[in-house]
């Protein structure tokens, strides 16, 4: 027991910790219940009264889900789509943010005004005309059809532009004296200096793209082109009422990002602060 007043465990402090842990437990229960169910033999899932832990834990459900194969294909599709969306979004947004922040050209203000107005347009409003456009371009059931509309993220350009506005021009001027082109400056001055905000934008773009349901749902009809969220939407129907298998596919579908979040928690937490509050 330490002697100072601040260090002592007082009743309110203990109560707060207990409350915090209880709330965390409530938030984890649905996830744990899903994992729990996925490890039960199929008949045990529909038993009443419900059992807490599986009598004889088994990976049968995972085996049957993986053997059906489509979930691996959806993983691949989700990875391709999310990686393309994230890298292209970062690329075009950084260039545009630099253009709006550091260069002058006729019409710059008008274009930036249009971009700001674009932030207001909810993607949900565009599904019908965008689908028409995609079928006109022959991009239905293609990766590009899923990816390209998601790359247009005016709010990311806005956040990055505001960040670039705050970066001192001294480094840039020094690089220019050394004869660097503007493209070179973007790559070797602006990008390294804005790494935290780029990581934040990247992480949230990736989560958004991996989890996006509505647009991939609309633009894919071929099960082999579906992403995880879209493919899993049909799982309930195709497995019937095999709850262990349904939960096994839910766990598999949720696992990648849970792992990413566990590894990069610090960046995610700080990124929200950088992009959300200051942006």
């Amino acid at each position, binding site marked *: 027991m330490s002697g100072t007043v601040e260090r002592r465990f007082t009743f309110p402090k203990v109560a707060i910790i207990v409350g915090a842990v209880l709330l965390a437990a409530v938030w984890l229960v649905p996830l744990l*219940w899903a994992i729990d169910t996925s490890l039960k033999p199929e008949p045990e899932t529909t*038993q009443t009264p419900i059992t807490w832990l599986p009598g004889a834990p088994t990976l049968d459900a995972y085996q049957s889900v993986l053997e059906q194969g489509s979930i691996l294909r959806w993983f691949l599709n989700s990875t391709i789509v999310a990686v393309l969306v994230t890298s292209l979004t970062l690329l075009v947004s950084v260039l545009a943010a630099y253009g709006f922040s550091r260069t002058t050209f*006729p019409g710059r203000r008008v274009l930036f005004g249009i971009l700001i107005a674009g932030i207001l*347009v909810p993607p949900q409003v565009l599904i019908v005309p965008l689908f028409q456009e995609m079928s006109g371009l022959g991009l239905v059931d293609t990766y590009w059809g899923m990816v390209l509309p998601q790359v247009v993220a005016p709010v990311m350009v806005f956040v990055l532009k505001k960040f670039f506005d705050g970066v001192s021009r001294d480094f840039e001027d020094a690089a220019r004296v050394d004869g660097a082109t503007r493209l070179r400056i973007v790559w070797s001055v602006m990008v390294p200096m804005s790494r935290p905000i780029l990581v934040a934008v990247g992480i949230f773009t990736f989560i958004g793209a991996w989890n996006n*349901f509505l647009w991939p749902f609309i633009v894919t009809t071929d099960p082999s082109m579906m992403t995880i*969220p*879209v493919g899993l939407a049909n799982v309930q129907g195709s497995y019937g009422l095999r709850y262990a298998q349904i939960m096994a596919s839910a766990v598999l579908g949720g696992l990648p990002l849970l792992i990413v*979040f566990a590894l990069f928690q610090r960046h995610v*937490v700080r990124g929200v*602060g950088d992009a959300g509050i200051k942006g």
Partner: protein
Amino acid sequence: MAVQTPTRTSTTEARHAQEPPRNGPPWIEKWGGLFFVAPFGVLFAFFLLWPTVAGLWNSFFNTSLAGVKQEFLGLQNWREMFGDPAVWDSLKNTLVFTAMSTPPLVIIALVMALLANRKGLLGWLLRFSYFAPFVLPATVVTLIWVWIYQPGFGLVNGLLTAGGFAEIDWLNDENRAMLAVVITTVWWTVGFNFLLYLAALQGIPEQVYEAASIDGANGRQKLFRITLPLMSRTTGLIIVLQLVASLKIFDQIYLMTDGGPNYATRPIIQYIYESGFTSYRIGYASAISYLFFAIIVIVAVAQFKLFSGKKEAV
């Protein structure tokens, strides 16, 4: 969020205006910046601007998804929309969802941030637990929660019957289905608001609390006199972001109840989707899209007014 930098930008520009041109010939100096904006600009024009304009155009025509023949209708789609009870019912469902989901999504987020703002392993575990559901795809969330709400052997009803209460058929009861969706949504998305609050909390300088301690303030006084007042701008921001996010409700409802039972939960975006992709009425779906768009713009403009006014005060 709020736009506030034009003065600062223009002064820095003025300071650098006398720089000698170093980007090659004069036309590159003048137009070169456009190349940086061009890749984004082209995608923006193709996949945001064009569909926005095409949607408005379509709303005046009798267009079907096949898109073969177009018949000019004038304002007929719009007139039909304002007289269509399904539009108003689904709009009402969207507003009810927004009104039900926003208060818990703000209050619980604030409580979580106050609880999890600590260092060490416990802090890490709390942050992980509170935020983890947010990184799951909508489908994973709804698969889990449909299973939890299951009558008979679902977790919630299992607990209710074990406690001697009557079962509730959450998703098939017109009066409970919306509540069930709201509970799922709070669980799923509160983590984002939690992180916004946490970032704001961590932005409060430690000295403020030290000074208060020296003045003899206790924990409760620090919470109500320092922390919560300093959180008011963040709360305003979170409320507006949440209102806009809740108005866009579609995924969870479509996946959990398909808008049922008896359309009791169908949100406006699902009606847009059904008009366009089930009834193949592009023009009509576009008109409803624009009604929804108008609502979002109103909320966003109100947000801008609110924050540009508040900024001076802080």
